[in-house]
């Protein structure tokens, strides 16, 4: 999936560096470590663990290194990783229906975790609560709680509150990376006057539109209210939604400030919208999406970090709302069985060490407070991932948390209605009514 020469080089460099570092550490501390190492190895826990993951290719290699870190410590436990790719929800649903789920799995949909808990398929991971609390801020621990019990660990997190821009387009228009929303909307007009549309939207991928809305809502009303809307404790016809949609209209409402206009934006999917921003000459100046945009830029365009492309946190909107709050999504570890081996493994994944092994290789973020920013391999990754540990509040991508029929079905529910909003941004009231009707139907099921 993410085959990129640069990434490979980076991975190789990272591995070499890690090895060198390990060697230095080993030499300098060999005497004291020899004794310590013996006590670190735990032979009393044994067994085997089947792990189904969505990670393939380089990500799989990276995670297998993480597993190695565990089996070095627990030599009598065997962890078998199988990559199921992005079909994970289908594969898991089918395996559960067939009565044969894996021991441990990672899923990217918190809504699915909730569904599995409600159907009594998951085992709580209360045993790891102490370890997790030691390593993660309360806001992050809470993400794994369903029905007041801890069921999941957000092991690999991504920062979805980011805005990517073309450095040259900004320079040409004479604007700086915006810190405030009002600045952004003003800059967008300047950028348009300079002859480049300000935004490249990925309207065909409905989730990018909901991401934009969610970031606006989070920055306008803060995490508490965000979580209420997410849980449908606030109706979609609420005035706060009206306000957020009005702000969103400032971005999507002006056809001439979108690359390809409204129609073009509706037919452009992710990641094509990213490529447009970094084409020569650029077709648009910015794209608003998560940290994983970096992968696409490095993989599909010639743009170089910092020199050609750069990233800023999603701009602050209301002064009262926490501007460091982060909308996140990511891969959660869930367990279908409970054995000492599984317990040890889940606890291990919550430690800084398990995160650092992968973080060094790139393409990985974590809310683990003990992972220093210096671990990340380059400036851009530090910029996107370090805020994760500093965020006072973290919220899940709203559409991932809602029932799938409303929050994550192609062309339907939230995705489809936001596409209608992009098509015709004038009738906010009708959009809100449609959202509420669709949410109501989905929550009833």
């Amino acid at each position: 999936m993410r085959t990129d020469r640069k990434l490979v080089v980076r991975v190789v460099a990272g591995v070499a560096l890690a090895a060198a570092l390990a060697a230095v550490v080993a030499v300098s501390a060999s005497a004291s470590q020899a004794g310590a190492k013996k006590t670190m190895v735990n032979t009393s826990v044994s067994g085997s663990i089947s792990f189904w993951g969505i990670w393939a290719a380089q990500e799989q290699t990276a995670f297998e290194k993480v597993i190695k870190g565990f089996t070095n410590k627990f030599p009598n436990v065997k962890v078998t990783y199988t990559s199921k790719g992005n079909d994970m929800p289908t594969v898991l649903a089918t395996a559960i229906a067939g009565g044969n789920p894996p021991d441990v799995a990672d899923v990217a949909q918190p809504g699915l975790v909730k569904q599995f808990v409600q159907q009594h398929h998951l085992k709580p991971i209360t045993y790891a609560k102490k370890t997790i609390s030691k390593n993660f801020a309360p806001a992050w621990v809470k993400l794994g709680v369903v029905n007041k019990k801890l069921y999941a660990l957000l092991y690999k997190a991504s920062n979805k509150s980011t805005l990517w821009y073309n450095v040259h387009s900004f320079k040409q228009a004479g604007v700086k990376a915006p810190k405030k929303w009002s600045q952004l909307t003003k800059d967008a007009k300047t950028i348009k006057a300079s002859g480049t549309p300000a935004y490249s939207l990925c309207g065909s991928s409905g989730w990018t539109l909901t991401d934009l809305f969610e970031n606006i809502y989070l920055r306008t009303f803060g995490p508490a209210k965000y979580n209420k809307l997410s849980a449908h404790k606030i109706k979609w016809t609420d005035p706060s939604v009206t306000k957020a949609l009005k702000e969103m209209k400032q971005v999507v409402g002006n056809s001439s400030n979108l690359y390809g206009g409204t129609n073009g934006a509706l037919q452009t999917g992710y990641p094509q919208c990213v490529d447009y921003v970094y084409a020569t000459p650029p077709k648009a100046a910015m794209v608003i999406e998560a940290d994983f945009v970096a992968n696409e830029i490095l993989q599909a365009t010639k743009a170089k970090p910092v020199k050609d492309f750069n990233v800023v946190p999603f701009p602050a909107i209301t002064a009262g709302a926490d501007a460091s709050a982060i909308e996140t999504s990511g891969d959660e570890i869930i367990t279908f069985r409970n054995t000492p081996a599984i317990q040890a493994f889940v606890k291990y994944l919550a430690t800084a060490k398990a995160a650092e092994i992968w973080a060094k290789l790139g393409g990985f973020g974590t809310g683990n407070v003990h992972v220093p920013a210096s671990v990340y391999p380059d400036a851009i990754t530090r910029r996107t991932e370090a805020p994760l540990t500093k965020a006072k509040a973290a919220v899940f991508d709203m559409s991932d948390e809602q029932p799938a029929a409303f929050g994550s079905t192609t062309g339907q529910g939230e995705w489809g209605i936001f596409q209608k909003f992009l098509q015709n941004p004038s009738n906010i009231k009708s959009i809100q009514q449609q959202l509420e009707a669709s949410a109501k139907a989905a929550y009833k099921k």
Partner: protein
Amino acid sequence: MAPPGPASGEGPSRYRTGALFLLPALVLLCVWLVYPTIYTIVRSFFGPSGYLGGWVGIDNYRTLFTTSTLVTAMKNSAIWVAVVPAFVAAIGLIFAVLIERIRWSVAFKTVVFLPMAISAFATGVTWRIMYLQDPSQGAINALGRTVKDAVTPPGVLPSAVPSTGLLQPHGGALILKTPLHPGGVALLGLTGIAPADMPSGSRQAAQPIPKPGNIEGVVWRDFKPGGGKAGVVEQGEIGIRGVTVELRDSSGTVVQSAKTEANGAFDFTNVSAGTYNAGIGGATFAKPFGGYSWLGPSLITPALLIAYIWIWAGFSMVVIAAGLAAMPRDVLEAARTDGASEWQVFRRVTVPLLAPVLSVVFITMVINVLKVFDIVIALAPDSTVANASTIALAMWRTAFSAPFDFGTGSAIAVFLFLLVIPVLALNIRRFKREI
């Protein structure tokens, strides 16, 4: 029937041998077809999460006819059934009859048949690229642009917009609202032009110096990094070269026109006393052909039908051509000798004789079209896949992607099964007759 071999005796043992040979097929048939069919039917009466979801009676079937996306899918499938088999059979028939009369018929047949060798998914991807709206990407709109731009060429500054409210659009043209008199100055500032799109050779714009009896002016890119002051010629702002500026009198008639120089300057000389307006003609801003939104909500189904017919026309042609080749020529000759025109021969003799072959094509296509799935998922972008959905696709999307509602998914599958049964029955009856 082959005569019984010497080893096999009469009566029961013969049946036993037969049954033994049939058994593997029968077992596979049961495992892969009979059991899943029964299970799907049963499953369609239960809720989304397995038997835990509980018995819901015919609720899933009610959902089927009340959910707007599923109704759209059924409507689309009806359109597919109404359009595709007829077109495929008709086009195949025309091709088959025509290729009998041309040289290089094998080459022609191969070309028409070739799409059959491509998977429907690949076809979908290819056509999707061809249908893209941006004429610099989509082949079909590129053709449209070539034709349209040859008739009405696009302007040099299609994306330009006025930098101040003083310059107002007037039927495609931009007219400076400020009235001008001889000795006056016209500032025509434009923005929204990327530096790369500026006419070559343009340089720093110059503030026009008024001259008695003349109207002097400048057309320039009223933008410098940071925005600059709108309506003011500043250092770093570039004049636009080669723009045609028109001077209109108070009645709106063009009295003079001038082309701008490299610094954007233009002048109208010897202007007689009066009130004038300066403006830039509409031709400068004429937009290039923007392309049709083939993949948009209203054209997506026709776009899919075209691609699908393109695939299957070859199959139909080959089958019908085979039918034609097997047709007794003397009947055609007899008709011709009796004085029938070619059209009459085709209409009254060829088509009736081909009826069995045509019905094979027709029935095959009806079954294919009811099941159509892959090309839709490959061709339609996510934003319009709901508008393009068909029954089979709706079934998959309901059951095997979020929300994993196997109950409603099974109901859709059963509904599809019921639709296919009559066509299948028809086909089986035909087979029996032929044997």
